[in-house]
């Protein structure tokens, strides 16, 4: 295996705005051809990181290395990156073709090459018949495509996308997510996206970084971030989770997690658990049991349904256990006639596999 090539290397990046620290000592790397997503609540500094990479803001400390070249002090118009803005920021006085060509013309690329690249990109975004239109005549999704085309036509080392889909309606957003992924794969370009939408992050990224108040909490691949998060914050931010509070008790031959909610949980002996760790279980990993039989490696519990939200394909229910603790369960609505069992007030048995438990650092 050769060394992985990094498109972006951030080293101890820090940015302050007056009294607030927007980006606080952030370091991470983005590999080549990755679809990297920064996920976090609004105001956590995720957009500021993009703007720092693009050079639209200057960092107070730290380095930005793009494709092996230190770009920390390079002016924005010389950096080999292009950005897709949340507001699209298309030039209102130029038609679609001129909008897309803008960057190429500035760089004085010859006419034939400009034509070839623009033609290619127009086919890619399926906007050939719109080249003479103006941005004001396009729908949100079409403007989004043009904004993307205007960025990728320059062959940047990395495309920075600042909440690009937040202004679109739900169906179009899903369509555009798929399109973004396809374009990224076809072009073998590195994409870096910022979003507060967890579903978006999960469905399009190859890697996710979760941020909170200026710091990166955790970086992981999309599936691992959901299935094996290591931090309580990231587990709670990405999807729902039942947190099981308790403490680890080491006996000579057993490692036991003593929890209030499910009692003692036997853990594998060789597991490395930090002292202040908690356990977590995703709501969809818990299933409703019809028999009261004991099965190996499964933790069983019983409770009363106190809340039921119906989503068509899924039901999100909350059950209250005998010890007054609440757990969330996501049930697939497989049969119509079993919906009765989920009614508020009904008593349910539920169980989950020990192997699905997640160990989380606080």
């Amino acid at each position, binding site marked *: 295996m050769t060394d992985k090539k990094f498109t972006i290397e951030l080293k101890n990046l820090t940015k302050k705005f007056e009294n607030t620290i927007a980006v606080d000592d952030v370091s991470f790397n983005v590999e080549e051809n990755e679809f990297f997503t920064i996920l976090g609540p609004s105001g956590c500094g995720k957009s500021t990181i993009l703007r720092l990479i693009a050079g639209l803001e200057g960092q107070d400390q730290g380095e930005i290395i793009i494709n092996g070249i230190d770009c920390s002090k390079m002016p924005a*118009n010389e950096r080999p990156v292009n*950005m897709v803005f949340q507001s699209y920021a298309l030039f209102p006085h130029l038609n679609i073709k001129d909008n897309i060509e803008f960057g190429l013309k500035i760089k004085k690329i010859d006419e034939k090459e400009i034509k070839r690249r623009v033609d290619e990109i127009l086919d890619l975004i399926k906007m050939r018949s719109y080249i003479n239109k103006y941005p*004001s005549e396009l729908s949100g999704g079409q403007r989004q495509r043009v904004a993307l085309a205007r960025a990728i036509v320059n062959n940047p080392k990395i495309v920075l996308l600042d909440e690009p889909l937040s202004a679109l309606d739900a169906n179009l957003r899903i369509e555009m997510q798929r399109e973004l992924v396809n374009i990224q794969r076809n072009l073998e370009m590195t994409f870096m996206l910022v979003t507060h939408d967890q579903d978006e992050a999960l469905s399009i990224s190859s890697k996710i970084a979760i941020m909170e108040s200026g710091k990166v909490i955790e970086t992981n691949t999309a599936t691992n971030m959901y299935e094996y998060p290591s931090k309580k914050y990231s587990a709670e931010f990405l999807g729902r989770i039942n947190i099981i509070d308790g403490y680890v008790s080491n006996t000579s031959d057993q490692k036991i997690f003593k929890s209030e909610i499910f009692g003692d949980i036997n853990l594998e002996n060789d597991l490395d658990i930090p002292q202040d760790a908690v356990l977590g279980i995703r709501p969809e990993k818990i299933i409703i049991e019809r028999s009261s039989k004991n099965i190996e490696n499964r933790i069983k519990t019983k409770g009363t349904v106190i809340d039921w939200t119906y989503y068509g394909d899924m039901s999100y229910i909350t059950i209250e256990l005998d010890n007054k603790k609440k757990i969330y369960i996501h049930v697939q609505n497989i049969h119509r006639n079993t919906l009765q069992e989920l009614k508020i007030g009904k008593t349910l048995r539920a169980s989950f596999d020990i192997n699905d438990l997640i160990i989380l650092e606080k």
Partner: protein
Amino acid sequence: MKKSLFYSPTDYARNKYLKYITFIFLITLYLPILNLIIFSFNDSKRNIVWRGFTTKYYNNVFENDVLFSAFLNSLTIATLSTIISTILGLTTAITLWKFNFYLKKYYDLALLFPIIIPEICMGISMLVFFNFINWPAFEIWPLTLSNIIIAHVSFTFPFIAIIIRSRLAILNTDTLEAGLDLGANNIQIIRLIIIPFIKPAIIASFLLAFTLSLDDFVVTFFTSGPNSVTLPVKIYSMVRFGITPEINAVSTLLILILIFCTFFVIRYLSKNNREVLDD
């Protein structure tokens, strides 16, 4: 009466009372001008009663050297002062929009001053000012007009700055960042993004300033000398000896020039809009 219930209260075009009011408004606005134009063809020295059609007063205007030179002065002043105030107004607008500086708020207010100050005060202050600094009385044309041009710049450039600034206010700053991100330097951003975006405002304000300057009387009256008489000042001095059809004729020509200018601007602007709206 019942019919009125079937359109929405904001559907003003269908309200017949509003239609009458609009009609009366337009009549009162344009009837005097129409009257002026009609009586410019009146074959009468006194010009009070209609005595038949003639175009001889138009010939008189073109043969009248004093009137023609006054007209030439007016055009020169309007053109030069508007060019200077467009440059000043444009740079002022960009500065006020883009930069924050000490006492900016008061600078903003000071910009409004030439607009709200009574013209008569402006005229007198200009007169006092040019006397105070001993502005030389030039002999060579168009330097003879220099003080009028300066005076006109001082009251037209705030209009230009304010119009351009209101257009700049709706320019999304993301667009400028997008330009920077796509490799444009500051000069290219101004040339390729800002200027094309505010072009309609520049043209509109240029024309407004041009018309303001062309028909200004009060400020010009106080700053003009015997060698620098403008058309409105000349008309005023002619009126003192009685209103002749000649005055009507020259006023009609002035109106025609203004209509002509406005027509081209509207055509230009609507062409621009068409490009934005369809293919």
